[in-house]
């Protein structure tokens, strides 16, 4: 079974949580990321659009979960990220971890969501009430780079 996947439609979280159940697991920790109506001090987000490089994204997600399994004493873990258009309040990402004890479940869950946000090739476009839209982490970055005349990606990693 895969441990990380993308979904283009809403899904029933309960049906994935039960996959983490195990007789040795006494703890479950889950993280749900929801779509909010503001970002970086700016209000008026109407909806979001997520785009993913799915072939690489699934591999990177699997690697992250394997890392978590090696670092923490967990039983099972699974992650799901939505793609496409999402409305305010919708579930955008879920990470669930089961373990014998809660410390490992919490720590692994935190590790997985943090690494997913930094490493999995997913992009988020915000659409605002005033008609503006932009790719998070790209627009400001592009403007900043232009100001400072950066050009080569090789030099600025």
């Amino acid at each position, binding site marked *: 079974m895969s441990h990380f996947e993308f979904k283009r439609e809403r899904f029933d979280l309960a049906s994935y949580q039960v996959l983490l159940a195990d007789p040795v697991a006494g703890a479950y920790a889950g993280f749900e*990321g929801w779509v909010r109506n503001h970002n970086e001090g700016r209000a008026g987000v109407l909806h979001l659009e*997520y*785009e*993913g*490089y799915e*072939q*690489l994204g699934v*591999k*990177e997600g699997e690697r992250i979960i394997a890392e978590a399994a090696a670092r923490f004493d967990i039983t099972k873990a699974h992650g799901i*990220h939505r793609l496409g258009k999402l409305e305010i309040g919708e579930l*955008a*990402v879920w990470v669930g971890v089961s373990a014998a004890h809660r410390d490992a479940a919490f720590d692994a869950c935190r590790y997985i*969501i943090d690494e*997913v*946000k*930094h*490493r*999995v*090739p*997913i*992009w*988020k*476009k915000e659409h605002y009430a005033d008609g503006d839209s932009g*790719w*998070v*982490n*790209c*627009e400001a*970055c*592009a403007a*900043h*780079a*232009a100001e400072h005349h*950066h*050009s080569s*990606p*090789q030099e*600025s*990693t």
Partner: protein
Amino acid sequence: MAEIRVEYFAILREHVGCAHEALSTPATTVGELYAELDQRHAFPALGRLKVAVNDEFCDWETPLRDGDLVVFIPPVAGG
């Protein structure tokens, strides 16, 4: 010349105006390919750009081979 395919996502897809293109290139590395395509498309300056060949992250010195799929990866924003 290597016959390769490039796929674009997110801000780069919108900037270039298409999701993928096939091309024959004199570039020998993915870094040279980026420079060649930057000449043609004038990519927006994106700070922490990464690159993947055949669905795996790689460095900018990775040699290009016939049939390669190259993807330039703008700063990500999952979650």
